[in-house]
């Protein structure tokens, strides 16, 4: 069944303190609508590393979320943005956190007669800093060896971290997920070299990443630490710049 004619599910809007994206919004639609805010640049970072322009004309936000693949790049970004999803069936709508919607690899909470209609996330504060890092063999048309998405918010004086969400893909046998122990270690701290170093070390202790013909688990576990470091340094620079 082809849903692509439902143009009412193709939108990006700001409403009630949230950013709401219709499930049939294509990656290309999103590319043309994101602004220069922290979340806009965050999404733009993943979009410009997503497939190719040809693929972005057709691929939709909803399609990518519902594919629930372990290599998915948009899912870590939406998890870092604390996204929730809205579904629709004859008997009504449901809302749930994205992580809950993703039941297992290639499996979502959708019933047979239900569709995903929207993904939304709270509009980040002006102090928020985000970074998406993807490792692939090429710049474009490439499946991620591993990707990391980081979202940080700081207190009013921009010194201590008040919110931290870090999500990554390529976890062994799993859909993309947050690494909460690493997030917890960053809370109420300044984002200095010490905090970055201990976050990277803690990530290294936690993980089992997948092994396949593209890269071994050992390689991915080393690479992901570099990506987290890059993401945190990127956030640090964004916080300082403001």
């Amino acid at each position: 069944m082809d849903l692509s004619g439902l143009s009412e599910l193709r939108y990006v809007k700001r409403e009630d303190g949230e950013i709401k994206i219709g499930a049939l919004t294509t990656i290309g639609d999103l590319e043309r609508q994101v602004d220069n805010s922290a979340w806009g640049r965050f999404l733009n970072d993943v979009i410009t590393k997503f497939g190719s322009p040809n693929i972005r004309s057709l691929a939709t936000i909803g399609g990518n979320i519902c594919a629930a693949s372990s290599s998915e790049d948009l899912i870590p970004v939406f998890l870092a943005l604390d996204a929730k999803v809205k579904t629709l069936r004859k008997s009504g709508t449901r809302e749930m956190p994205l992580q809950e919607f993703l039941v297992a690899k290639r499996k979502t909470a959708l019933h047979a007669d239900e569709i995903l209609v929207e993904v939304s996330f709270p509009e980040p504060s002006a102090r928020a800093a985000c970074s998406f890092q993807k490792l692939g063999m090429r710049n474009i048309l490439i499946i991620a060896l591993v990707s990391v998405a980081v979202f940080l918010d700081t207190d009013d004086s921009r010194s201590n971290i008040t919110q931290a969400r870090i999500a990554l893909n390529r976890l062994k046998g799993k859909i993309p997920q947050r690494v909460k122990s690493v997030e917890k270690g960053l809370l109420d701290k300044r984002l200095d070299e010490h905090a970055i170093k201990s976050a990277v070390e803690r990530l290294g202790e936690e993980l089992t990443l997948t092994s396949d013909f593209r890269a071994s688990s050992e390689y991915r576990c080393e690479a992901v630490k570099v990506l987290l470091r890059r993401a945190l340094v990127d956030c640090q620079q964004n916080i300082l710049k403001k």
Partner: protein
Amino acid sequence: MNGKDHALVVESTERLLDVLRDRLDLKGVKEGCGTGDCGTCTVIMDGRLVNSCLVLAVQARDKKITTIEGVGTREKLHPVQKALMKYGAAQCGFCTPAMVLAGKNLVDHNPSPSKEEIKEAISGVLCRCTGYYKIIDAIHDAAKEISEVRS
């Protein structure tokens, strides 16, 4: 389709690629991988590049589609086509229709693209002969020519 309406009854599983090649005889649309990777079957649909192997024919209903047959004629080539010839930017030629469409679509939306923007715009079309540089230079040149003509 290239400025003309076509009324066709299609199967629900027919790909746009097959309808273009086999039913409308637009053989400039090439099939490479058939799985959305190589971009050789690129067409412009409502102003966006798409791989026609990934579009079902029914999804193209009421859409404006441009294939290489709708871009230029032998007598009156599109500036992108002329520039590709000038730069010798084709070898086997299999990706060339898609490259022309990617270049044309770029200059339609962005009259003075940078080389980085050109790389991005053609990144969905794989070329295994030329190493891309001549293609990038040619599109850059064509964009300049088009802007000069316009001004």
